[in-house]
Every structure is written in structure tokens, then in C-alpha cells.
């Protein structure tokens, strides 16, 4: 439910990257959203469309790439993507696993027009 403040962080990144590359316009943004990040993609999309009016990204399209949970097992060294919340190793069944992907929020790429 804090998607609007996350979108404000997206715009800080966009403004910074546009300045750094001397760009006047952002035309596309790709966000990687972990399925365990606690963020709802639909709300991010509507917050982005609300926020972009009158900015350098006024015509930009936001694309969201969901990132599934990826587990690493320190016991057997296995790595696997997990679709449900049963966080155990697919290889050896151990419950002592680390979540290596699927909790983060990243701005992956931005398309800039100069």
C-alpha cells in the first residue's frame, strides 16, 4: 500500500539517469518486482500513471517483470525457483534455505531520448 512512495523513488532514479545521460525524456521503464516484495504490480502501474503527468516521463510506459522466489540451499548447494510459499530445497528437502531472489525492487532499465 505504499506504491505511490515507491513510484516517487522510481522518479528520483529517472531524473538522476536522465541528467547523467543528458536526456530530455524517458519513454520506457522496466521494473523488476520480487513476488515477495510486498508490492502489488497493478497498484504500481496506476501510481506511475498518476505520478508521471507533467514530468519528463509523461509519455513513458512502465513494464513490470515479476521476479519469482529463488532459493539457495547451503546444505547441498542447490538453487531452485519456488512458486509457492513452501520454502524448502527442491533437491534435498532441507528447510534451511536462503532466499536469494524475489524480495527486491529494482529499476532494471530506462529508455531515454536525447
Amino acid at each position, binding site marked *: *500500500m*505504499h506504491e505511490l512512495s515507491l513510484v516517487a523513488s522510481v522518479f528520483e*532514479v529517472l531524473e538522476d*539517469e536522465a541528467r547523467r*545521460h543528458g536526456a530530455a525524456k524517458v519513454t520506457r521503464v522496466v521494473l523488476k518486482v520480487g513476488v*515477495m516484495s510486498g508490492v502489488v504490480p497493478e497498484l504500481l502501474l496506476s501510481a506511475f500513471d498518476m505520478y508521471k503527468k507533467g514530468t519528463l516521463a509523461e509519455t513513458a510506459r512502465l513494464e513490470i517483470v515479476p521476479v519469482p522466489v529463488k532459493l539457495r540451499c547451503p546444505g547441498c548447494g542447490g538453487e531452485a525457483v519456488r512458486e509457492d510459499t513452501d520454502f524448502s530445497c527442491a533437491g534435498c528437502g532441507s528447510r534451511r534455505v536462503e532466499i536469494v531472489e524475489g524480495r527486491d525492487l529494482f*529499476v532494471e532499465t530506462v529508455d*531515454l531520448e*536525447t
Partner: protein
Amino acid sequence: MTAKTITVARDLLASNKLAAAAIRQELRGRGILGVNLLSSPGSGKTTLLETLADRFRGRFRMAVIEGDIETERDAERIRSKGVPAWQITTGGACHLEARMIGQVLGDVPAEIDFLFIENVGNLVCPASYDLGEDLRLVLLSSPEGDDKPAKYPQAFLSADALVLTKADLLPYLPFDPARAAAEAQAIKPGLAVFTVSAIRGEGIDGLAGYLVGALERLRSGLA
């Protein structure tokens, strides 16, 4: 006019993570255990802190940062126990962020043992924000139902311990503490579980012992 795709790979929570790391370093340097409390509204976070204040009185010193959307009510309840408390009113924001904690950290007395941070009542958003704590407790009260861990996995995944509160109501409710614990531990293996009644004091010794153990580990790591 030329268009190009730039790979940036920038973390949206990077500024919060940085602020949290600075808080963690400062608290550890002062030998203070930071504890972040997460739960739905009305799960008994403030009542649990009142009971811990009574339990620790004369043995350990604590301070509390209260997060709420509006009002000083929770900080006043804690202060009436003789415990220093600061109220952060977020004015609508659904969670506390590390930067907000950083703003009051300078006022927190150096000689305390525990700094409790009571997050905004919300089982979703606070899970994503590291506040620089060393221990995260998630509370689940018996009236909420024992099926919540699988419905709100992020909160349980991010926690170190689960506190099942309002155990005094268990005779009247279909809440099964074993089921809640098993569901939460399926999400977070090794999650410590405590069943307590803050108003009757049941189970508080176990939780207090766990907190003191974590404090001692933090301090022994300082040597």
C-alpha cells in the same frame, strides 16, 4: 532525436537500506538491542510493551519509538510506565522508514538496553522496511485466526520470532497455536515462537528471556 536503453539495476529501497545500516551500526556501538514489532492493528503490541516494561523494571532499561498514523496515545501509555517514548505520527503512511527512526535516535538515552520500535499496525508494508533493528518480532493475536501466516508471508518471512498474543482468549476461539506456529515455521524455518497473555503475564518470562539472550549475544559480539 535518439533513443537508447540504459541498464541501471538500481534498488528502489537503497536509501532505506543505507539509513538502516547506519542505525544498526550506531545501536550496536552503543550496546543497545533494537527490536522492531510488526502486527495488524489491535494485536497487542503496546500492551505487550507495557507488560515488558513492568517485567524489566529495575533490571533492564528500555525506550520505545511508537509509530502510528495519528495521535500520541501509545507513547503516553508507555511513558506512564516510566519508560521514555517518542511518537512518530506518519500522517497516513502505512509503515515506518529508517530515516524516521534516524531523526529521533539522537534523543534516545545512551544508557538503555532495549530500543523497541512499535511499527504502524499493518501486517503488509512494514515487512519491506529495515529499520536497523537486530531483532524483528511479529505478533499474531488469537482473535485474528491461525491461518494468517500463509496469507501474509512477507511479514513472517522477515521475522526472527513470532509472538502469539491474547492467549487468555484461547478457550473461546478456534485458534490453534500449534497450527499458527507450524504455518509460520513452514515459511521461516527456525522462527522462535512464544505464546503469551500480556494482561495475565503468561509466557512473558520466556519472551523476556529470549530478548535478554539476544542482548547478551549482541554485547558479546562487541568484544
